[in-house]
């Protein structure tokens, strides 16, 4: 990013107050996740099964109350944030790396190769991601890293398609033809000439991917196929509330982790939207 473009971008981004606000909240959440041990009031995995310890409503001692096993919800939320965010970020990385590479090759070379590669994407896209993820998760019983890999490997298709579309149209641009006339190698054209023009789109897509990954991971953990104890994420904290009885007796056990997911995803979406508007209003329809 060169200074001229960066300035334009920052100017546009700062005009968007929602996005700036969202970015600030996100930074706050990340800060709390990193320094979880500092802010935690209890051991997040310590179980107290005495009747007067479980399902306590929020008090000064237990800021957000305790869950059905007597664990402190506030402390669990802090540590759960680490897993939730980490999975989101890792998934995004995997998706972007794989999706961009796949899309770039398919779009740049075109022809029969592109046809075959895109058929495969179409086929993969016609299966609900959650099916594959659940099948894999139920057989492999992965840790959080495994979850990230599984989600990443089942959600790169849209990114690939997006990047491919951009490559397909950009390679027809005359600056690419000029680059070929100047005898540049394919590798150079892809990375130096085309990729920077897709960069904005990829970054926006990456932000939205983190949001989607956080949502998917929490849904998976909620259903019991995500991270397994003793590891836990925001999603798995809600898991017990599937039983109506727990929801009835202690709604706060479900309320706070869900709220955390909601706010994080919301901020990520606003942030991504802000990036998109700041970079190029023309991208509006295609980056999701």
């Amino acid at each position: 990013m060169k200074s001229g473009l960066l300035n334009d971008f920052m100017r546009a981004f700062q005009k968007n107050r929602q996005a700036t606000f969202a970015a600030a909240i996100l930074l706050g959440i990340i800060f709390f996740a990193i320094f979880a041990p500092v802010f935690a009031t209890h051991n997040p995995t310590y179980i107290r099964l005495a009747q007067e310890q479980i399902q306590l409503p929020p008090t000064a001692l237990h800021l957000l109350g305790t869950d059905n096993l007597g664990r402190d919800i506030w402390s669990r939320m802090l540590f759960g944030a680490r897993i939730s965010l980490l999975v989101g970020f890792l998934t995004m990385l995997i998706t972007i790396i794989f999706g961009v590479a796949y899309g770039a090759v398919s779009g740049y070379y075109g022809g029969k190769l592109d046809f075959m590669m895109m058929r495969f994407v179409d086929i993969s896209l016609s299966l609900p991601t959650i099916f594959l993820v659940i099948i894999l998760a139920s057989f492999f019983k992965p840790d959080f890293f495994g979850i990230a890999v599984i989600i990443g490997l089942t959600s790169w298709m849209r990114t690939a398609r997006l990047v491919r579309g951009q490559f397909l149209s950009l390679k027809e641009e005359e600056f690419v033809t000029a680059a070929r006339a100047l005898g540049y190698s394919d590798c150079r054209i892809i990375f130096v000439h085309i990729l920077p023009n897709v960069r904005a789109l990829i970054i926006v897509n990456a932000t939205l991917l983190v949001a989607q990954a956080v949502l998917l991971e929490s849904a998976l953990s909620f259903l019991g196929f995500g991270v397994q104890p003793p590891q836990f994420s925001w999603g798995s904290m809600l898991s017990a509330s599937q039983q109506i009885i727990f929801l009835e007796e202690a709604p706060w056990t479900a309320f706070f982790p869900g709220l955390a997911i909601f706010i994080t995803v919301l901020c990520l979406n606003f942030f991504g939207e802000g990036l998109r508007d700041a970079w190029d209003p023309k991208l509006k329809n295609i980056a999701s």
Partner: protein
Amino acid sequence: MSSLLEVRNLKKYFFLGKGAGKEQNGVVRAVDGISFTVKKCETLGLVGESGCGKSSAGRVILRLLTATAGEILYEGQNIEQLSHRELLPYRRKMQIIFQDQSGSLNPHLTIGNALGEPLRVHRLIYRKEELKAKVEHLLELVGLSPDQMCRYPHELSGGQRQRVALARALALNPQLIVCDEPVSALDVSIQAQIINLLKELQQKCGLTYIFIAHDLRVVKHISDRIAVMYLGKIVELSSKESLYARAKHPYTQALLASIPRLTPSVRRQPLIFSGEPPNPLNPPAGCHFHTRCPYAFARCAWEEPLLQAVDFDHSAACHLLDR
């Protein structure tokens, strides 16, 4: 003057649709067996209406598109068959500039980088200062000031961008430049600047141009010889003077008659054809032009006319010439 480039029976077909059974979806014969030579330091104009294949021809010659058939001889060497690696030295000798000056420069590269890159990639210059000096020299050559170096393409005007594109083409010291409608997207007052610049550079650097355009005024001004294309074929090939004074092919005559004149008092009676250019997917048999030609006779509908010499350095493809 010796010939620099010779094109023999060059063809470029586009197959529509994808997957199996391509042919049934149709073939566009964008370039359908054209032959010509370009001499050193001359300008060959390539004119025709949109879709006549002039742009494709330009790109096939530079091997930016793969030819369906034919030979491209550059200084006697057939470059059609060369591999990617073998082609590299020829890439330096032949360059292209485009119509759309905003699309022909990478929006993410500064002018300095865009001009320096070819030199670095071809390992012509390694040292930083030397590179900078060379880029400055290139900018001056096309009439831009060296402080434009750190600018991005979107910060320049259309005319300036076209100058940069030209400078980039010149970076590798080419002999041949294909100019694909280089001025048609520019404002009238800027067009003249670029045309003058092209002429100046031709003399200064000993360049050879293939000048693709649809504007017959501009082509007349800049070219030495002109090839007129219609639906993938050359219908007339001639020196400029001869073509504008004594056009032989009815299509050329029509083109010339269609140019609006600059004299309002003379209301010309233009030679207007009722028809439109035929669908390139399904061109008429025989002479492609016979459906619009006012002089067409029976033979035109079934026999394709061949390019034949009518004068010194003037040939045309029309059956009328036999009558």
